[in-house]
């Protein structure tokens, strides 16, 4: 009898203790803050533009970008740093070192991932392959099939990042290479339809892997005014579902603020791009809540 009483009481106190613990986990820890930082089309712009540059005097520069990123990391360590491609080509740094310095600096800044832009093929697949040892970050692209090339296995179709309990699924889409990049450079790389690939990716990341956030790194281009049938980020956003954020590149588009697009199911998706040459750093902050009461609450987007 006494023994039974003891067990019951112990069980109760254990339960109380665990209730206490779970209560505490319902506290401050339950609002999670994730900061996405992003660049695109940096095009080997390592140094800032000179003071006498007619268009972008004194703008950009890796050393300054690194300092900004560091400041943000100190404020919120939960950062995902991403690039939307075209890391290569644009200054003699690329002509002389083939992208080595670009990759090394991005690794020093602790980039998490980048997708592949058309100019990243400028020294051919072999040129890109040669620089891979200098990158500690991931290359993510879902619609280029590199199976029959030297890049086989070096580019991931997607990657799930666990950021302080938040599951972030990242996949990537690249632009049609034929007619844009010399076949001698991209060789047997196969371009697949980005919208079809996105369906597979979002099903996997959202439905199967149950990611809290799905991000697409895109080098499709923001919008093509003169070629409305050409796939662009704005069209891509409308034709897909379960994507929360599209980080774009290619068209060197400077936006006043991220664009909000209604996707296939009527949900809002953010499309952003920050111009080019490392002149700007994009920042999107996501706040998550575990409180059940909020389950069906609409998200507020402040841009």
């Amino acid at each position, binding site marked *: 009898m006494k023994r039974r009483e003891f067990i019951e009481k112990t069980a109760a106190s254990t339960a109380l203790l665990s209730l206490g613990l779970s209560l505490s986990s319902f506290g401050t820890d339950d609002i999670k803050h994730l900061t996405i930082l992003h660049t695109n089309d940096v095009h080997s712009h390592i140094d800032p533009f000179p003071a006498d540059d007619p268009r972008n005097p004194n703008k950009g520069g890796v050393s300054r970008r690194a*300092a900004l990123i560091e400041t943000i990391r100190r404020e919120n360590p939960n950062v995902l740093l991403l690039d939307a491609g075209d890391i290569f080509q644009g200054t003699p740094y690329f002509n002389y070192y083939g992208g080595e310095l670009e990759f090394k600096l991005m690794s020093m800044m602790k980039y998490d991932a980048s997708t592949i832009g058309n100019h990243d093929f400028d020294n051919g697949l072999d040129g890109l392959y040669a620089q891979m040892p200098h990158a500690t970050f991931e290359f993510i692209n879902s619609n280029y099939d590199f199976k029959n090339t030297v890049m086989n296995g070096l580019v991931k179709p997607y990657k799930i990042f666990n950021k302080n309990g938040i599951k972030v699924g990242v996949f990537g889409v690249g632009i049609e290479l034929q007619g844009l990049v010399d076949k001698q450079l991209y060789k047997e790389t196969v371009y697949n339809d980005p919208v079809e690939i996105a369906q597979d990716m979002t099903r996997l990341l959202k439905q199967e892997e149950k990611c809290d956030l799905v991000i697409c790194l895109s080098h499709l281009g923001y919008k093509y005014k003169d070629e409305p049938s050409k796939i662009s980020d704005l069209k891509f956003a409308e034709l897909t579902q379960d994507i929360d954020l599209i980080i774009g590149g290619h068209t060197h588009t400077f936006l006043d603020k991220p664009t909000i697009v209604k996707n296939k199911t009527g949900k809002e998706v953010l499309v952003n791009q920050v111009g080019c040459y490392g002149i700007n750093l994009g920042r999107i902050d996501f706040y998550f809540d575990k409180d059940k009461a909020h389950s069906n609450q609409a998200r507020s987007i402040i841009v």
Partner: protein
Amino acid sequence: MVKLKKYNRFLKLFVIFLTLTTIFSCSPKNYNLTKIEGKQIPVAENSAQTPEIEKFIKPYRDHINKDLDSVLAYCPETLDKSTGKWQTSIGNLLADVCLERGNKVFKTRENKSIDICFLNHGGIRAILPKGNVTTRSAFEIMPFENNMVVLALKEEQILEITSYIIREKKPHPLSGMTFTIAKDNTAKNILIKGKPLDVNKTYYVATNDYLANGGDNMSFFAKNIQKYDLNYKLRNVLIDYFKEVDTIPVTKDIRITEE
């Protein structure tokens, strides 16, 4: 004792209740996205530097600067693309150099000669100032990664090139061909390497890949019989040429005249 038993039963139920709640609250549940904030941060003059990054870049920068600023040749007077209605000194130089150096590659590979070099005025991105000529000069004039290509064209496309020049009214770099613009705005006295245009002949025209693919509305290049990529960047053509000569020639000969 009775009282305690009752209490025990209640406690048992309470334990079950707590266990269930705990299990439920611990089961994997996704987070709900409640708020998104987006902004753009300019990387500008007032941003701080990162000494570690600066130190890392320095040896790379120093090497490039040393190489870019090493003197390759001398230019006796400033060559500018804005002086000249139908031809300019820098355009003439560029087209001549491309024809000459491209020809070396084309002859070795195809055993054929380039007849004409035709480029675009807009593709010249800087002047060649009087004084020392460096690798940097070549990078400034030709920042693009354009490759030299040779296209096999017939008489009809050569005529289209002349009408394009007349219509555009720009001093596009031209070498290997001369002609006169008649009063009715058509081309006459067209000479290629000093010989009149021959309807039966195939002409080999050198240009860059951007223009060969229809850039600057040069649609006539698409009508080529054959295309040869020389895998030779225009900038490297210039650098190789600068390395070879001591003094840059100032070529002011008239290639296009008006009646």
